[in-house]
């Protein structure tokens, strides 16, 4: 899952991006409103974490711009403004969630995950495909009852494929959702990661579950 953090406080921005990366998210950051709007309009994010009081374009204006361009990315407003009016304004402008500073990192993570689930119209925190089971809260993967140990990015890729189960997901889509701008994505990065995941899943059950559609992409399904 790919997240954009638009926050002018360097310390907070860095702490948040580190925390989300450690939890398997691909994170891009912007220090001001202009950069934030540019990134939001250029890349495809699952969630945008948006501060309101920003140098340059303010958060509400960014939100208005992206909603005007029919961008449906979930937006979580993260701000020190706590008045009812501010909350109402933020939510009515098009934000999906509103969190007031200071906050617990765990709560922010839970809200970001919830927004991701909502983005894929899936309210369930457990994804079950045949003998494959993914607990998106505990970030735990089991196949045929055996726990599969995955690296954060591997987990993110598997969860992304699982959320779009039955559909062919292109390499570009995977790159856009799993890798941030800061990651140097090699041409075979996605293929390599898929290969590793397949191998780890095969240790529990050799039946293939991730299928390659040559020239198109990958599909997670039971055939």
């Amino acid at each position, binding site marked *: 899952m790919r997240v954009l953090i638009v926050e002018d406080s360097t310390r907070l921005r860095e702490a948040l991006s580190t925390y989300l990366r*450690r939890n398997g998210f691909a994170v891009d950051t912007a220090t001001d409103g202009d950069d934030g709007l540019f990134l939001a309009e250029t890349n495809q994010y699952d969630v945008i974490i948006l501060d309101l009081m920003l140098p340059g374009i303010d958060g509400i204006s960014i939100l208005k711009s992206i909603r005007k361009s029919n961008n449906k990315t979930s937006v979580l407003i993260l701000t020190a403004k706590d008045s009812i009016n501010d909350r109402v304004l933020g939510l009515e402008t098009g934000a999906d969630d509103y969190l007031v500073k200071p906050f617990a990192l765990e709560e922010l993570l839970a809200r970001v995950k919830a927004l991701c689930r909502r983005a894929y119209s899936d309210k369930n925190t457990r994804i079950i495909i045949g003998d494959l089971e993914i607990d998106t809260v505990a970030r735990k993967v089991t196949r045929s009852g055996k726990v599969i140990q995955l690296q954060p990015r591997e987990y993110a890729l598997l969860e992304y494929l699982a959320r779009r189960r039955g559909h062919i997901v292109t390499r570009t889509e995977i790159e856009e959702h799993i890798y941030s701008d800061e990651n140097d994505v090699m041409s075979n990065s996605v293929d390599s990661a898929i290969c590793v995941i397949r191998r780890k899943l095969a240790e529990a059950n050799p039946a293939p579950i991730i299928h390659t559609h040559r020239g198109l992409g990958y599909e997670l399904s039971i055939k």
Partner: protein
Amino acid sequence: MNTIRKRLSFNLLLAIGAITLATGIIVYFWSKSSLENLFNSRLLSNADTLINLTEVDKSRIEFEYENEIMHNYRTNGSEFFEIYQTNEKIIAHSPSLGNLHLPFILPDSNEPIYNNLKLPDGRIIKTATIRYSPRYEDSNRKNNENLEAVLVIGSDRKQLDNSLAAIKLVVIGCGALLFIAIPILVNFIIKRELKPLQQLADQTSKINVNTLNLRITANNLPDELLPIATRLNESLARLEQSFEHERRFSSYVAHELRTPIAELRAIAELIIQYPDTQTTETDRDILNIALHLESIIQKLLTLSRAERAELQINTEEINPLQFISNICQNYEKKIKRRNLSINLKIPPDLTLVADSTLFKSIITNLIENAVDYAPERDEITIEINSENSASTFKISNTARDLTQKDIDHLFDRFWRKDTVRSPSSHIGLGLPLTLSIARILGLELSASLNSNSKIVFTLSNLKTVADELHPVS
């Protein structure tokens, strides 16, 4: 009972009731007295006629019956008389008495004595007993002879009593009518006349901490209530402003404290969950956040002390050119980095009298603001003009983002224009603190925006050493 309306109604009803009752009693007894007097006059008038018919003839008192007059005293009539000699011997008596006799009383004087008595047939009559001297036939009067007679004259008082009963009935009837009508009228009038007061109370009761924007409608209010409504509206305006100020202050405090606390909490939680993320840099960040929070609290405390005028003042002579040049030197690096220039227009031999520490705090704050907020390559002008024994300090720089509305909030605690968040060292306490210190020093600090989009801070009333006045040309 504890309402003006009820108390007013009760007291008015009590007063009107007492007056009505007294009036009724007075009317009745005055009417009774008048009728009795009229009755008595008629009795006396009749008595005069009878007395004129009594004469002494040959030392004998005789009564001359006149048919025309006696007509009133016929059998079964309602008028009665009986004439006695002083020895109680009857001289004459009206046919209307039949076999009855009116009681004999011998008055001490000529004043009539009135009595009421009941006849055997149940009739009540009123009598007047008069002692008098009958007229003499001149030729018959013996020497010094003065015979006297006693006339007891009476009249049926049925008509009088009926009239008195009718008056009593009218008085009681009117009383009863007033007893019902007065409370209704009093209530109606009081309610109508106190309506503006009730409206004032209704409007006032709607005002609470959340509706301080409401105002009392002064239209149609009577003159007595107009000053109350006016003063109330003025107080409400002040209260609303004060609440708004406090609300804004609380909001600013919360906002300024929330971000560093959020940073601190995020870094701490990250380190606890992922200990490998702790580096020298994160430790330094934590320290810097703590210092930043300490700075906010320190400034708040100083501001609080300044507002309570608890700062000590030690005045001394200051050469402002040197003083301000030294402060500017502290910002030399930043001025160079931002390509700013400072234009000092201060007479070199001008001497001011001020507390150097507090004055430095004011000037430092104003210069720091100018250096941080002026756009790059801007010119900051600092000048002092002297007139008589007072000088005025002015500092100006370009401020394109600010509007007149922003200027009104510049001295509010924690106020910062949202779009002007950086640099982060400014937390919106500098200017209110500067204003408070200026007030303590007896100086006036104001800000204005001129037509060239320049913000000008003016510090006036600076004391100048009198013999060293050097106005700037």
